[in-house]
């Protein structure tokens, strides 16, 4: 239905590109208007922060998006242009005046504003010396330096033995009207610290921070690695000044934690972790379109439940222009804005369901080889596992998009009840396209994307089979007291935070236990993991505020103040203003629960005698808080049956057991299997707002996949020759996407075209050579092997770097290099490596993604095994194993690629020709 409508996306950062790609995939004609001279936004300048392993910075996603967007004929691109006027049409659409070198008028039915952010100008804090001391740089400068490759020291013209990161520059800074956390700086600094150490192993890195704001996939693990593997030191302080030292180094002055005295520390390089603010044009655009701004100047959502909408029909917002967020979140935001456009369009033509037309090869984050086009009939029913709020919201969204859904499972609500849940329940109940199978449990799943067959065991052992094109896993999470507080569960005067509910805190809980007279005192203990802290901390602050309002004295104990959510800093400051005492502990608090409740905790910031409130006594540097009630924030854990469910679904779980593959190339709601999505609590997203984003994005992606009942496949997939298949099951076991299974009729392996991602891993593992990947058969690969140093390059990483390298390579070197493109290094077969030598290669390199960062999850690991195998086989026939090499190359690492090529060529030169006689 969008065929004739045009949507204009303003701003081509990650959010804008994602929205454009998604809208085009849904059949809209898209015009992407970008002010700058090139696409990509801020993140296009960033560096891959991979060390030996992927550090999950997501920068490679930008390169994927760039290629996807540029390769789509249905996205019109206008660079060097802005929107400088708008007229409303009587039809409800808009005419935008787009200005640049030339002026255009573009008629459209909807506008997505994705105009991004403006980094804080470090010179606005002159005391930090930016622009004055050459040793002080911003994180943006460091991004670019890392990007350029080569030595950082060289780049900055100094040794970089001691490096300091100063956090929260231009963030959490009320004085400058920036009373919010920029949400990305803690993580980018952590990753950059690792990258700096990787390139300069002798560097010592110190991070001056207030609190650690974890985000992305398993931030706790990354922090642990930074501390233990890289020796990164975290100092809790907000430096007040950076001064020049006589020796040309710089001195960071910071307030010591104990005692409040100012101490200096010398560094060779100081990196200012600048925050993100509203983009320059935000206000102008807000005025132009009549949109609201929040107190900091970001676009404000009209409906907190659907943040892509603005309250103005046909105008939507996505990405950092509506508040700080990282790349993955911005990409998801783009998808969500696209969904909002479609939904509004459907509402406008009331009664009609949205007709989605999926065009192929537009799967998020995936560039594809072309295969034989084919339209596969699929089931447009979507199965939602779990009656959580996010599950119900997904079902409702799918219903709007014209899909029938079946919700299987009990209705669960881990966060206590809220009005919204009931409204949602009612809407699910009355929706005729949503069926609910209460108490059902998935025990078996056959089939593939488009045609799953789910076996459900209902109450009383009743077994039924449901056919579904896609599945959304929304089974929620389990709340339990964190390890350190486990023993307190069930004690008098101790309650769980979730028991208090989101609003209307029943502070009477403490009331009954009051020991007559005096004030009432509550301790709220939030000792949760960094990945769940943001959502849980917010609940804790709300609870603190309602306790304060009820006249209580409140202590909040936590390892970090997690305020990366929108508006959280404001809430936190408000709680402090009203007298809540926040204690950031390093050692777990101790709770003595005799006849009275006493909580002992050491506050490293206050030190001895620093106890702020009257109610605390001071026992040898410890705060002793006699409390009437202790509220413990529960930690989120995967539900007990999560691992069994994951086995049935054949989806990967993350290190903590949630349905969240650790791989950065999978958008948060994607799993390793096409057609299976995971949302909300069961993937570790515990906040209601995050869970809603998930629900919308997953519903939209599911609808795009199967919503029309037809799936048009034109990407290259692997095919099995059943005559050659020995049914060894290697492909079934090794396919990272579980696209292979057994065809019982043919008695051979079968690969589903709908489910296959086209990595070619199965083809290079099959011992019967029964599998070949379309457009990339062995013959096609071998045809491009020439007698030169041969580099097999992954299409998603090294090949992008290689393309840039080849452009600058001296012609004699270029002549000696033969680049062979593969969709994934996992497609590189042991035979390709050997044949390359047979055909005269003097050395062979395989270059692909970082460990744990493979676009096909495990292809690069398989490739590394192949390279090791080739090395030992070559050795057995007298050929030096050093001639075959593996390199990790990120898409932006053309400098590293060049180094790898030169190193490989050097090895070949030193070893001399492979074939003795042939050379003579």
């Amino acid at each position: 239905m969008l065929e004739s409508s045009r949507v204009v996306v303003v701003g081509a950062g990650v959010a804008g590109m994602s929205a454009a790609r998604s809208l085009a995939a849904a059949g809209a004609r898209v015009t992407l208007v970008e002010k700058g001279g090139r696409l990509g936004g801020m993140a296009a300048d960033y560096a891959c922060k991979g060390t030996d392993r992927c550090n999950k910075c997501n920068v490679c996603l930008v390169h994927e998006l760039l290629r996807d967007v540029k390769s789509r004929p249905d996205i019109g691109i206008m660079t060097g242009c802005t929107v400088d006027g708008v007229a409303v049409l009587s039809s409800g659409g808009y005419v935008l005046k787009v200005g640049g070198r030339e002026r255009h008028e573009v008629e459209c039915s909807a506008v997505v504003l994705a105009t991004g952010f403006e980094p804080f100008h470090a010179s606005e804090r002159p005391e930090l010396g930016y622009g004055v001391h050459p040793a002080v740089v911003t994180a943006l400068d460091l991004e670019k330096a890392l990007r350029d490759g080569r030595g950082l020291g060289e780049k900055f013209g100094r040794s970089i033995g001691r490096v300091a990161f100063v956090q929260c520059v231009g963030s959490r800074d009320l004085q400058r009207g920036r009373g919010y956390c920029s949400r990305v700086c803690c993580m980018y600094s952590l990753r950059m610290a690792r990258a700096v150490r990787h390139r300069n192993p002798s560097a010592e890195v110190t991070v001056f921070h207030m609190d650690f704001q974890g985000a992305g996939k398993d931030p706790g693990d990354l922090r642990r690695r930074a501390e233990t593997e890289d020796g990164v030191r975290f100092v809790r302080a907000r430096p007040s000044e950076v001064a020049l030292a006589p020796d040309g180094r710089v001195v960071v002055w910071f307030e010591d934690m104990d005692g409040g005295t100012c101490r200096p520390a010398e560094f060779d390089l100081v990196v200012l972790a600048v925050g993100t603010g509203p983009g320059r044009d935000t206000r102008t655009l807000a005025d132009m379109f009549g949109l609201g701004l929040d107190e900091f100047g970001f676009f404000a959502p009209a409906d907190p439940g659907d943040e892509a909408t603005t309250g103005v029909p046909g105008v939507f917002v996505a990405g950092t222009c509506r508040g700080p967020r990282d790349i993955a979140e911005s990409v998801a935001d783009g998808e969500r804005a696209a969904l909002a456009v479609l939904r509004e369009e459907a509402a406008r033509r009331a009664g009609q369901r949205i007709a989605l037309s999926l065009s192929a090869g537009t799967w998020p984050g995936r560039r594809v080889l072309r295969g034989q086009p084919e339209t596969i009939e699929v089931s447009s029913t979507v199965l939602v596992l779990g009656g959580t709020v996010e599950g119900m919201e997904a079902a409702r969204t799918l219903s709007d998009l014209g899909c029938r859904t079946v919700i299987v499972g009990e209705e669960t609500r881990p966060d206590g009840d809220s009005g919204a849940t009931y409204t949602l329940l009612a809407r699910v109940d009355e929706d005729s396209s949503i069926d609910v199978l209460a108490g059902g449990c998935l025990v078996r799943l056959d089939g593939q994307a488009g045609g799953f067959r789910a076996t459900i065991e209902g109450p009383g052992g009743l077994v039924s089979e449901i056919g579904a094109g896609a599945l959304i896993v929304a089974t929620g999470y389990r709340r339990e007291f964190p390890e350190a507080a486990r023993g307190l569960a069930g004690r008098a005067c101790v309650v769980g935070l979730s028991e208090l509910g989101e609003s209307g805190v029943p502070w009477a809980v403490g009331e009954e236990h009051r020991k007559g007279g005096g004030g009432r005192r509550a301790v709220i203990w939030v000792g949760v993991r960094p990945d769940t802290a943001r959502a849980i901390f917010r609940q804790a602050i709300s609870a603190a505020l309602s306790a304060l309002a009820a006249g209580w004295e409140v202590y909040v104990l936590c390892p970090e103040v997690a305020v990366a959510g929108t508006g959280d800093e404001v809430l936190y400051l408000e709680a402090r203003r009203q007298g809540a005492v926040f204690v950031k502990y390093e050692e777990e608090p101790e709770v003595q629960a005799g006849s009275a409740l006493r909580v002992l905790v050491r506050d490293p910031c206050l030190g001895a005698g620093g106890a702020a409130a009257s109610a605390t006594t001071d026992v040898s540097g410890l705060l002793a808080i006699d409390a009437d009630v202790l509220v413990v924030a529960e930690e989120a854990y995967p539900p007990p049956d999560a691992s069994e469910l994951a086995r049935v679904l054949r989806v990967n779980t993350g290190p903590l057991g949630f349905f969240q593959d650790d791989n950065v190339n999978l958008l948060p709601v994607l799993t390793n299997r096409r057609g299976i999505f995971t949302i909300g609590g069961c993937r570790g997203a515990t906040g209601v707002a995050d869970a809603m984003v998930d629900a919308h994005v997953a519903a939209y992606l599911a609808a795009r996949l199967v919503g029309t009942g037809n799936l048009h496949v034109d990407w290259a997939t692997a095919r099995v020759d059943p005559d050659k298949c020995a049914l060894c099951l290697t492909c079934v076991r090794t396919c990272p996407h579980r696209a292979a299974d057994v065809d019982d009729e043919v008695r051979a392996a079968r690969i589903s075209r709908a489910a296959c991602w086209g990595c070619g891993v199965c083809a290079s593992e099959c011992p019967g050579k029964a599998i070949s990947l379309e457009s990339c058969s062995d013959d096609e690969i071998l045809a491009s092997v020439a007698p030169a140093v041969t580099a097999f390059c992954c299409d998603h990483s090294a090949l992008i770097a290689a393309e840039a390298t080849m452009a600058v390579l001296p012609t004699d070197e270029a002549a000696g290099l033969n680049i062979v493109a593969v969709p994934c290094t996992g497609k590189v077969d042991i035979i390709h490596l050997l044949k390359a030598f047979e055909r005269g290669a003097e050395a062979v390199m395989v270059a692909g993604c970082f460990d744990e960062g493979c676009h096909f999850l495990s292809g690069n690991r398989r490739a590394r095994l192949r390279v090791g195998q080739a090395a030992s086989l070559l050795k057995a026939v007298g050929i030096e194993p050093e001639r075959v090499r593996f390199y990790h190359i990120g898409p932006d690492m053309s400098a590293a690629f060049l180094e790898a090529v030169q190193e490989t060529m050097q090895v070949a030169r030193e070893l001399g020709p492979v074939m003795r006689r042939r050379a003579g």
Partner: protein
Amino acid sequence: MIVAERKSLDEILAMLQGCSRVLVVGCGTCVTVCMAGGEKEVGVLASLLRLAAQREGRTVEIGEATIERQCEWEFVDELAPAIRRYDAVLSMGCGAGVQTIAQRFGGVRVLPALNTKFIGIPEKQGMWVEMCLGCGDCVLDRTGGICPIARCSKGLLNGPCGGSQGGKCEVSKDTDCAWQLIYDRLASLGRLDLLETEFAPKDWSKNRDGGPRKVLREEVML
């Protein structure tokens, strides 16, 4: 299935000394599944033989072929048109395959590229373990479905021996004691009583006694 493993390249190269035209023949059944001698391994070995020769400056002709099963006359026949062009055939089938080809083509040198190891299963992808010795007189009914002959290092019928420690065999910490497994399984089946009957000494005449074994079934013969 039959599990095999490729011989070392040194051994293979030594066998092929003096041969300049070699046909490498894979088998599409057991050894494809155990990744020792399917079409892919044929490609790898052929490539290595060429590289080894090139490295020494020799010219060789290495042919590649993979047939459905090397232990069937009809499939082996497919080799007939080309086979005599070669100085030697390097079979990547199990021992049965090597011999079938040799028997079918008198006068052709047929060499084994694999060591045939055992009848077993892939315990997991990339790891195969022995399960059956082909003793000719199956006892699994009395041992809870766990073979003491193949899986007990000593092939004991009335185990375990004194070397069973914490469920492991004294031969190696990586080897489960078969008799511990048998005990545990019978216990879980509630059939420990089976252990009360002693095994009589095994009748090995059903195994290797009387030369190579034959199975003869007249009703299916032509």
